[in-house]
C-alpha cells in the first residue's frame, strides 16, 4: 500500500432522496470548491460530472446519503454512500443504456443509463460496492499528476 497522501481539503454534503429541486446543488458546490482551490478546468469538469451523476443516482434511487469530497496532494476523491435498495448486479448497472429510472424521471431527461459510465470515464480509479437492501458506496478518484515517482 502506498502511504496515504496529505488531505488538503474535505467537505461532507448530505443528499436527500427524491428531492429533484435541490438535486445538482452538491455538484455545483463541488465545482466551486475545486475552482477556488485552483484546480485545472479539466479536473474541475471531470469531478463535477462524476459528482452530478453520483448525486442524481442517490436522489433517484436511494433513501439518501452523503457525498464526501476529499482533495489530497495527488488526487481528488469523491465518495458517495447511501442507504437504499443497493445494486444487485453492478456489472449490469454499469452497462451504458441500462436503466431502471421511472417514467417521471425519464420525462425529465434522466434514465439514459449513461450515468455510471460517465462516472467511470471521468475517473482514474473507480469502484462500486453495494449490499442489496442496505445501500451503495461509490468511490471515484481523479489523479492530479503522473502517479509514478
Amino acid at each position: 500500500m502506498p502511504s496515504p497522501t496529505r488531505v488538503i481539503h474535505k467537505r461532507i454534503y448530505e443528499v436527500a432522496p427524491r428531492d429533484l429541486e435541490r438535486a445538482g446543488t452538491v455538484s455545483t458546490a463541488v465545482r466551486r470548491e475545486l475552482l477556488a482551490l485552483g484546480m485545472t478546468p479539466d479536473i474541475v469538469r471531470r469531478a463535477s460530472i462524476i459528482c452530478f451523476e453520483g448525486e442524481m443516482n442517490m436522489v433517484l434511487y436511494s433513501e439518501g446519503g452523503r457525498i464526501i469530497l476529499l482533495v489530497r496532494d495527488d488526487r481528488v476523491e469523491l465518495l458517495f454512500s447511501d442507504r437504499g435498495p443497493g445494486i444487485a448486479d453492478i456489472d449490469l448497472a454499469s452497462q451504458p443504456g441500462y436503466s431502471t429510472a421511472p417514467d417521471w424521471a425519464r420525462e425529465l431527461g434522466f434514465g439514459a443509463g449513461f450515468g455510471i459510465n460517465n462516472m467511470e470515464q471521468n475517473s482514474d480509479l473507480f469502484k462500486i460496492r453495494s449490499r442489496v437492501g442496505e445501500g451503495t458506496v461509490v468511490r471515484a478518484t481523479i489523479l492530479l499528476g503522473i502517479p509514478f515517482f
Partner: protein
Amino acid sequence: MELRKVIAEIGITTLVGADLAREVRGGYCSDLLSDVLAHAQAGDLWITHQRHLNVIAVAKLRDVAGVVFPRGLRPSADVAARAQAEGVNLLIAEGTAFEVAGKLYRFLHP
C-alpha cells in the same frame, strides 16, 4: 464566434444574457442529461426541450455557451433566476430543434 453575433444571425432571442461575449464553437442537441454530460463540448450551444433546474446545473458543469429552447418553450421564472445567478445564457428559438440546429450549423460552417 461570439454568442451575440450568433443570436443576431440565427434569429433567436435572449431570455438570460449572462455572458453574451461567450465564444460559440458548435452545438449539441439532446434531451438526455447524461448524454449531454458525456458528449457536449465546452462552448457548444445546447438545444433541448428540457427546462427544469437540473438543466442549469448540467449547462454549468459542461460549460456550454448557452441553452437554446426550441418551439418558443420558456422555462419558469425560478429556472431563469438560477441561470442568471450561475451565469448561464438562456435563449429561445421560435423554430423547432431541427431548424435551430440547421441554422446554427450553416452559420458556423458556411
